[in-house]
């Protein structure tokens, strides 16, 4: 069910971004959303990194800089995990909001930093591009929070109530 939910999020986000044609980045955003959501919904650390690795490799196969998206997504999961174990240790809505925003920032920061590290300039860094990133980050974070709340209320609570009924 969790995996189906993640797949559904990817398809939904991809369709939305394709529909509105947001700066042609509709391939990157859904994967980023799916990686963060999978982290929040599932507890298996191998799955977090494995999914980020495969998603990154798939994106890299069709992008100009092979490896860039894989490293960015893996680092994003690492940052998430690190923050979750040290600063944001609970799983309340405030934590989810903070983590979603921080992860977006981390992902885009790594991509922009790679502009200086890679052999040829692939990014056209401009104020309009940075502004687009800010808007995307807000939209993506809101989408993640909305989906997590839906998932929490529909799936986890239902599961908990079923378990309660079983015990009594």
């Amino acid at each position, binding site marked *: 069910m969790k995996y189906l939910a993640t797949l559904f999020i990817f398809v939904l986000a991809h369709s939305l971004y394709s529909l509105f044609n947001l700066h*042609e980045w509709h391939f990157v955003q859904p994967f980023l959303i799916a990686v963060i959501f999978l982290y929040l919904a599932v507890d298996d650390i191998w799955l977090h*990194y494995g999914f980020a690795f495969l998603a990154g490799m798939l994106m890299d*196969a069709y*992008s100009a800089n092979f490896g860039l998206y894989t490293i960015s997504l893996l680092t994003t999961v690492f940052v998430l995990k690190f923050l979750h174990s040290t600063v944001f240790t609970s799983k309340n809505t405030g934590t989810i909001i903070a983590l979603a925003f921080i992860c977006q920032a981390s992902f885009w920061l790594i991509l922009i930093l790679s502009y200086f590290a890679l052999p040829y300039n692939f*990014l*056209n860094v401009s104020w309009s591009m940075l502004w687009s990133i800010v808007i995307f980050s807000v939209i993506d974070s809101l989408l993640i929070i909305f989906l997590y709340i839906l998932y929490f209320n529909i799936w986890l609570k239902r599961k908990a109530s079923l378990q309660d009924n079983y015990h009594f």
Partner: protein
Amino acid sequence: MLRRNLQIFLLFLAASLLLIFFKEGQIFDFGFVMRQLPAPQKVANQLLNPPDDLAESYKELLVENSQLQLLEEENKKLRELLDFTQTTEHDLVVANVVSRDFINQNLLIIDVGNAENIGIGQAVVVNNGIVIGKIIDVMQDAAVVRLLTDNGSKLAVSLGDQTLISGLLSGSLGLGMSLQYIPQDTELKKGDILFTSDLNELIPGGLVVGQVEEVEFSEGELFKKASISPLVDYNTLSLLSVIVSL
């Protein structure tokens, strides 16, 4: 917990770095494997549209019709390229556009690479030899093309029949091109055609690049500037060819 996180992160990071280095060393290109995966649209279409009598045949005919139209268009482009290959003395390799980079739309990924003798700096042309960009990276089965409209693109060009007078063509915000370093005494007007200069190392001179759109002239400056429009639509590129030897 933190230690385990770091260990697994480093493990996956090492795996991805290995794949990157394998690709650079041309041992194994993981991107090639990914690109061979079936297209998700086809799978989705098969799942959403199960076979059904008349409606299905109608859809099949529609698909066939659109495919034939695409083939006709491709045929036309190939004929144009064939004309160019027969008239030019350079060696050309025909390539299809696989995708565009997700962030920078002025970077194209094409389906020819090291195996076809593609090298960094070679010119990419369309139709009857109109230059549209340069190769900036080569993989096992693919290469990256930077279009002339990209901010990082630089190309030495000459003006019309004045082959000795050259300027530097650079991309402008990914939308158009601008021509710089043209001597003030050079006659330049709207509609003039630009050609590649002989100064480019791997690009033959005399190939069409674009057309002058607007000339900027100022008494206080040493050089003239001009904005250049491409002769082909860069958004609809599908079939290209790379000049592999001069």
